[in-house]
């Protein structure tokens, strides 16, 4: 069994956000910190759990991004992935998912994977498109928001549960090869182990310069980014903590809510 997990490096949540003077993307500084997209950690963990069941499994991880994005590949290797591929793209700014999907599939077409996992979306751009696009380019079946999976003993299909509105789950049998986009809560991602981290540091990553790949043409253009207008429609309570507590209770009492 050969699994490819597509992962992404995103800006650490809680990092201060500054907009570049061009108004087209964020401005990163020396103090900007990056981390692995949290949804992707669940995707890596799920692949590792499959490997624990099917010992002959190989897990490859792939990312698209600038040189510092290699940190997430090393983290994945530290968790237990076997090989790592870095599609190196130093371009700054917004890269629509169609481009990422096209580049990843260009690599996939040269290999023979049984499964491709992605996180359901990325924390930063929140598009939730890349995994579905990869499946369509490859003409593989795809299930999104997967919260449970189990591979059949003959390894030809898997039973999956995908989350739908209201927290119910639709159950499907899906034929391999397929693409699954993984929802949080499917497992508890492990921390990288020290021995694996040390090995990951020495591991050679396969680098593919993005320049060498064909780029999708039908893509949206990012015009501007801005801070959302502060449309606080409510009242911001002021004063000491005690003042705020009293004010809150008075308001709730006046509405007979307490």
């Amino acid at each position, binding site marked *: 069994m050969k699994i490819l997990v597509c992962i992404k490096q995103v800006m650490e949540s809680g990092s201060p956000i500054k907009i570049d003077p061009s108004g087209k993307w964020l401005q990163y500084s020396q103090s900007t910190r990056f981390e692995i997209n949290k949804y992707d950690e669940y995707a890596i963990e799920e692949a590792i759990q499959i490997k624990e069941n099917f010992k002959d499994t190989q897990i490859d991880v792939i990312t698209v991004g600038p040189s510092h994005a290699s940190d997430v590949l090393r983290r994945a290797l530290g968790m237990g992935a076997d090989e790592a591929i870095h599609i190196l793209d130093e371009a700054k700014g917004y890269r629509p998912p169609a481009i990422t999907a096209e580049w990843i599939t260009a690599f996939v077409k040269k290999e023979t994977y049984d499964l491709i996992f992605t996180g359901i979306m990325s924390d930063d751009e929140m598009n939730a498109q890349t995994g579905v696009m990869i499946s369509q380019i490859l003409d593989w079946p795809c299930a999104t928001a997967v919260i449970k999976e189990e591979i059949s003993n003959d390894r030809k299909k898997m039973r999956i549960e995908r989350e739908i509105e209201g927290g119910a789950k639709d159950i499907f049998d899906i034929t391999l090869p397929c693409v699954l986009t993984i929802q949080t809560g499917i497992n508890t991602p492990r921390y990288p182990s020290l021995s694996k981290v040390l090995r990951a540091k020495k591991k050679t990553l396969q680098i593919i310069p993005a320049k060498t790949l064909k780029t999708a043409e039908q*893509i949206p253009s990012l015009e501007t980014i801005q801070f959302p207008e502060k449309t606080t429609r409510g009242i911001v309570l002021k004063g000491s903590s005690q003042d705020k507590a009293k004010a809150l209770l008075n308001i709730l009492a006046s509405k007979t809510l307490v």
Partner: protein
Amino acid sequence: MTKKITIIADHDGKNIKPITWELFAFAKKIQAHEKADIYFFIIGENTKELAQDISIHSGCKTYAMDVLGTNNYHGQIYKKILIPFLTKNPADYILVPHTTSGMDYAPALSIALKGSCITAVEGIHNKDNVLHFVRAMFGRKIQADLSNKNLGASSPQVLTLQAGSFKPFKLDQNDIKNINIIHEAFDCLEKEMIYKGCQPSPSKGSNLAKAEVIVSGGRGIEEEENYKYIEMLADIFPRSATGASRPICDYGWAKYSQQVGATGTIISPKLYIACGISGATQHLEGIRDSQFIVAINSDPDAPIFQVADICIIEDLTDFIPIIVETAKKKRPTN
């Protein structure tokens, strides 16, 4: 030249879902920018009456496709029906609900139809004669304007609409003379993905749906044991329940049956108190129908403050004990 907008309707087999009418409002906004005809498309096992409902209340031609095995959303079948249909009946704009089903097929449509895809659109405006689609990024702390100005003339724009972004719009008429539907049945052979049933939501039967007051905790509680503050605050209200944001359910600090949001329980209490919840899109979607919202968060930029009636910038672990203490003191005099 008149453009063509195709809306993919959302329904539960019995009723058209409100997001369909929000998509109609979205289409009307595109129509204000350029001349366009609006069509609806609906897939299901028994779509004739649903299609009539759409056609009466929109005045638009509606294509209805009966396909066995689509009583519940089925991604592979949807794609197998939609792609040939939209190839034969090309649209300039394909409007899809940003639901767990819409998200599952919309990006595939854009690839198959050689178009572009913008997901979770929340707004639209015209700038220098170019349509800008507005969507949230970076945990709703950034808003992005995207356009399709560089798209090829024959390439469709696939757009998914975030629920609650536009007021649902439908015509107030019941004249069956307006019905204009094309109803077909279709067999779809699908072997790669087979529906095996549905696992009910863990929140089914939980008290979240009935509670008058719901107090929820989010990542701001920082540690599992701090969930006690949420319970402490809920205790001062009769008929109250405790809820949680998705991340803390994922951490195992609260049960999934307590999850408030689009993929948990959609709530409509008289009072909702969000503690340490930043306000992810899917959470906001689940609390929209609350009558009164109080938000407690130490981050003044938290998006939850944009929907709250009362905003309190405080750390919940310090502030909740103060509220509880103050409430106890007040009670005898009330």
